[in-house]
């Protein structure tokens, strides 16, 4: 016996919409649950006081500082490398074996799981180079993690700049480098910023890499060579060792909401760029 095609279509559509609804429900559940339990903990004192008694009391100030340091360092290191790679790939070469190798490297690097990056950062920066568990080791390893994100988005952004812009520059007698720095990069800037913002989002939420490279010291890091516990690592330790559920929820809320906001703004920016040039 065969089912009437129209009936089976109705059943399948209902099923597909139900599963889509379920997925949306999971997303909303995560955001609402963390926000409802976490946001009431978030007071000015929570943000501006250092953790006390291993995080049982006090706020999360030192972890915010550590997060800002490693993220800033990672972005400062990865941006020139990533944007430079993207300029080279889009403006300086035809597709050939060199571009294939570079793309292959970026693609594979994007697929390396964070625990492997953690192992690598640990053996190279922490042990071999002797930086120890530090902001420096953490920032260097994070930079490798976000490099592929910056390359990919910058490449898209630079490609989206119309060819006419470049031709006009050349006809006015500008050199290739002048064209790139005065016209192409400024036009691609919103798209490049998207990549950088996505990288910040990725860095804020990263745990496995930083646990083994930046360590878990609760003091506010005073130099590049100090260990620092980031918000994500702090949240992990609070939750896993059952130190303080309210503080864990509060930290999670701050972390999740900042990442979501950054991603939403980045997405909006990219949409505007794509609209302008298409």
């Amino acid at each position, binding site marked *: 016996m065969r089912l009437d095609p129209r009936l089976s*279509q109705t059943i*399948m*559509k209902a*099923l*597909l919409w139900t*599963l*889509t609804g379920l*997925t*949306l429900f*999971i*997303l909303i559940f*995560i*955001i609402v*649950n*963390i926000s409802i339990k976490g946001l009431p903990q978030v007071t000015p004192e929570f943000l501006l006081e250092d953790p006390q008694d291993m995080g049982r009391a006090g706020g999360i100030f030192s972890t915010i500082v550590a997060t800002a340091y490693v993220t800033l360092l990672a972005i400062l290191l990865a941006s020139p*490398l990533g944007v*430079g*790679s993207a*300029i*080279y790939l889009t403006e*300086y070469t035809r597709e050939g074996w*060199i571009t294939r190798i*570079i793309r292959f*490297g*970026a*693609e*594979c690097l994007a*697929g*390396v*799981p964070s*625990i*492997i990056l*953690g*192992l*690598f950062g640990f*053996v*190279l920066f922490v042990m071999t180079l002797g930086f120890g568990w530090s902001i420096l080791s953490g920032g260097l390893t994070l930079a490798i993690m976000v*490099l*592929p994100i910056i*390359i990919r988005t910058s490449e898209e952004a630079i490609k989206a700049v119309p060819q006419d812009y470049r031709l006009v520059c050349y006809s006015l007698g500008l050199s290739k*480098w002048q064209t790139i720095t005065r016209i192409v990069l400024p036009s691609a800037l919103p798209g490049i910023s998207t990549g950088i913002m996505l990288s910040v*989002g990725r860095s*804020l*939420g990263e*745990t*496995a890499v930083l*646990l*083994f490279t930046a360590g878990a010291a609760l003091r506010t890091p005073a130099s590049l060579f100090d260990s620092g516990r980031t918000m*994500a690592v702090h*949240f*992990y330790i609070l*939750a896993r060792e059952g130190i303080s559920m309210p503080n*864990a929820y509060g930290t*999670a809320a701050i972390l*999740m909401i900042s*990442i979501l906001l*950054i*991603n*939403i703004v980045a*997405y909006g920016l990219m949409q505007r760029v794509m609209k302008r040039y298409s």
Partner: protein
Amino acid sequence: MKKELFIERVLLFLALSSIGALVTITVFIFWEGIPLIASAGLKNFLLSSHWAPTRGHFGILAMIISSVFVTLGALILGVLLGLACAITLAEFAPERVKILLKPTLELLAGIPSVVYGFLGVVWLVPLIRDYLGGPGLSLLAGSVILGIMILPTVISISIDALSAVPDLYRDGSIALGATNWQTVHRVVLPAASSGIIPAIILGMGRAIGETMAVIMVAGNALKIPTSVLDPVRTLTANIALELGYASGRHREALFATGIVLFVIIMILNLTASAITRRR
């Protein structure tokens, strides 16, 4: 003109950074891990499930099996939900709904893995313990959380694959009297399969490489699981749990575990990109 050439050289140097980083990572992980595999023997390392690193036993079979099962479980959930979302959005949803829902679902990718793990411990683990039995921290819990975590990968790549199927295919099928669903399932899905399979493989790579969420919900017990309710320790969890205090051969064994993980993930990623490129 000399300046231009110099700039080009500098940019090429910058552009080689990603492949350079990849090579350095590979060299260091292998350099640290190979001596142990050489001295313990590849067969003992991969095919024994006796892991007692302080007493010289380095078998990771139980963890390989656990990683494989947790990942397969994650794929069942992730592919079912992910494909359903992708088909709904690409084929059935009105344009305005699609424009709103696609980026919304992609937000799932931004939620940190520790948050997934935490919610797994708070909500999912007690549910499993109370209704299905066992300790709650289990293979099943790991699979469900990972299944949710790979959704953004599966959804966004599958939507792109479905959207890349020319409308001519759909029109032809509808003109022959097929319903929308028959068109999707007999014409569009097969045509998009070379884009959907990489989506699934990449999702698999993400699941097998995920660490923090799995540590929090899967229970980390060192044995070959006999039921989905058993606690399991994956390859990633093994590295993360022990790296903090390991030294000597024990630490080498963790890097050797890393080699196995690295090789599995590279094979998955290369397969996915080979399939995508052939299209």
